[in-house]
């Protein structure tokens, strides 16, 4: 019977209807076949969303929206321009640096690519950077957004996996996140410098202007410190940090920069709620779905099956990574996390991997899916901003995908890269 349900899942999936309904219909078919009361579905869906930690999702999206409309993003970019604007490829480096700062405030890659891209892609085009490269670096650097804490995929992962601390995951994401940024900047210097216009000797920026830019940006710059510091010192939980980010951005935009109007704010709130609704519909239907997986003991059966094939933990990890990279090419990160984690996690834990290590690998692998065609959401946004076709950006982004996969593999096989900082803070043994 499970076979029938699985086949219908795949058939419905291929129809192209929203993933939430694919899962919902599969659950419905299972319930009808087994004769379980259908009232369980709405009840489980409610329970699946009635989770405090999930609040971080709308709040982080909202914070990103407020930062853009309120002029915080703009000031961060102007500040970075003072740092590296005058070297060759300056705007490309800025793209990565601002993504890293942004990553320290919000937890989602898409907020990153749409806001930074909207400013930097046109600016890079004007300065004579190759358009494909500009779009590619914007999309690629945005993936840092979900790795450097605070991070949305880690929060969702912690809900799905249970018994793993979000704070430990956040800390574990620091080094991989910095690594992506650093490697991307090195790649720009080594491989892409000929796609950047030569540095122009422009007139020296007067010191007073420099100071003004720094003073302007300082309120946005200290935001990551407030967020991460607050979480680590226990003043607020990772979930609450998302609300702090919103309020902080709101206060600065409304009262200090004074760039945010009430009607703009309403639109941003509505937009955040709609994006959240689309995402949480999947979370909701995954609740009865996960329940079925448990009842049918699918994870256990899969674990037994895989272990009967091989006992080599490294090989199993490699297979899992390949599988996740494949899933990520056509599926949304959150949906993929909710579906795959309960199934894959028991196997990985059984062969002796650290839960935090596994979490980072799974989230990172699925996050690479954001920049891989055919369905890379960050690619689509970059494409819609630059007006360049998806194929051209896909070609330009290929080297960055390779870099990400190399970092993923090094994290996978050298767990200390990930586990070092959480150990330092005593979050894991």
């Amino acid at each position, binding site marked *: 019977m499970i076979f029938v349900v699985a086949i219908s899942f795949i058939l419905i999936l291929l129809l192209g209807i929203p993933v939430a309904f694919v899962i919902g219909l599969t659950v419905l078919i299972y319930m009808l076949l087994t004769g379980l009361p259908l*009232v369980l579905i709405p009840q489980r869906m409610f329970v699946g969303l009635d989770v405090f930690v999930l609040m971080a999702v709308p709040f982080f999206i909202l914070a990103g929206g407020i930062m853009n409309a309120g002029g915080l993003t703009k000031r961060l970019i102007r500040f970075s321009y003072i740092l590296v604007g005058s070297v060759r490829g300056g705007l490309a480096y800025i793209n990565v640096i601002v993504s890293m700062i942004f990553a320290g405030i919000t937890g989602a890659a898409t907020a990153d690519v749409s806001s930074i891209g909207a400013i930097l892609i046109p600016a890079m085009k004007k300065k004579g950077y190759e358009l494909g490269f500009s779009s590619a670096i914007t999309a690629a650097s945005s993936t840092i957004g979900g790795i450097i804490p605070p991070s949305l995929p880690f929060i969702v992962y912690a809900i799905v996996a249970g018994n793993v601390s979000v704070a430990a995951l956040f800390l574990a994401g620091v080094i991989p996140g910095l690594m992506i940024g650093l490697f991307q900047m090195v790649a720009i210097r080594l491989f892409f410098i000929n796609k950047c216009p030569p540095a122009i000797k422009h007139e020296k920026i007067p010191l007073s202007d420099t100071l003004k830019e720094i003073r302007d940006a300082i309120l946005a710059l200290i935001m990551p410190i407030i967020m991460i510091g607050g979480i680590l010192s226990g003043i607020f939980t990772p979930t609450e940090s998302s609300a702090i980010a919103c309020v902080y951005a709101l206060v600065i935009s409304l009262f200090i920069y004074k760039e945010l109007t009430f009607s703009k704010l309403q639109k941003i709130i509505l937009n955040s709620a709609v994006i959240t609704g689309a995402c949480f*519909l999947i979370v909701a239907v995954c609740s009865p779905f996960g329940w079925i997986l448990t009842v049918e003991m699918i994870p256990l059966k899969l674990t037994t099956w895989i272990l009967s094939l091989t006992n080599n933990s490294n090989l199993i990890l490699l297979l899992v990574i390949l599988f996740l990279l494949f899933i990520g090419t056509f599926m949304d990160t959150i949906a993929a996390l909710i579906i795959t984690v309960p199934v894959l996690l028991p196997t990985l834990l059984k062969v002796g991997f650290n839960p935090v290590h596994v979490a980072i690998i799974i989230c990172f692998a699925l996050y690479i899916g954001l920049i891989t065609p055919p369905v890379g959401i960050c690619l689509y946004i970059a494409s819609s901003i630059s007006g360049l076709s998806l194929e051209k950006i896909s070609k330009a982004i290929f080297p960055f995908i390779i870099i990400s996969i190399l970092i993923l593999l090094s994290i996978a096989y050298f767990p200390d890269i990930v586990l070092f900082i959480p150990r330092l803070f005593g979050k894991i043994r």
Partner: protein
Amino acid sequence: MKINIKILENLDSKIDWITSIIVIYSLSLMLLLVFSQIVFRDLFRFSMYGIEELARYLLVAFSFFGASIALRKNELVGVTFARNALPIKTQRWVDLAGIFLVSIFLMIITIYGFRLVVSLLKTGQLSPSLRIPMSIVYSVVPLGFLLMLFRSLLNAFDLFFCCSLKKNAKYKQITEESKKI
């Protein structure tokens, strides 16, 4: 026929307006609640009773209502590469079949959601800390799904009568997906 479409459009925009208002205020209120909880706890060492519960219920409410707006705007992500590989004419039939299945699902959840509410009404169960009747709390599920059902039928209507418009919309949908996580 023309008048009917007008009425439908009118109803659509009215519902859109009301849903938007509900969604905006629930999210704002939720932010206010969570933030004040932090402030009261850390500054005044005073934990407010039941705040978290209310915030969670608001989260569920605006998620389902927000999803109905996303459904109408075609912002829900699907795996469309197989569908896109089909010839255009077949695509339309696949889409209609998809909407048909989705509507059946939405209808069943709406019906059983109402049954759930009715059964909670009978038992008179109250929420743990704020003592709100759970029947009211759970009613956001059938209401949200009823809205989604209505919006899904409107999508079917669009697909049936202005097929060419929809073709472009599908491509736009992909860029709109962008806003997702």
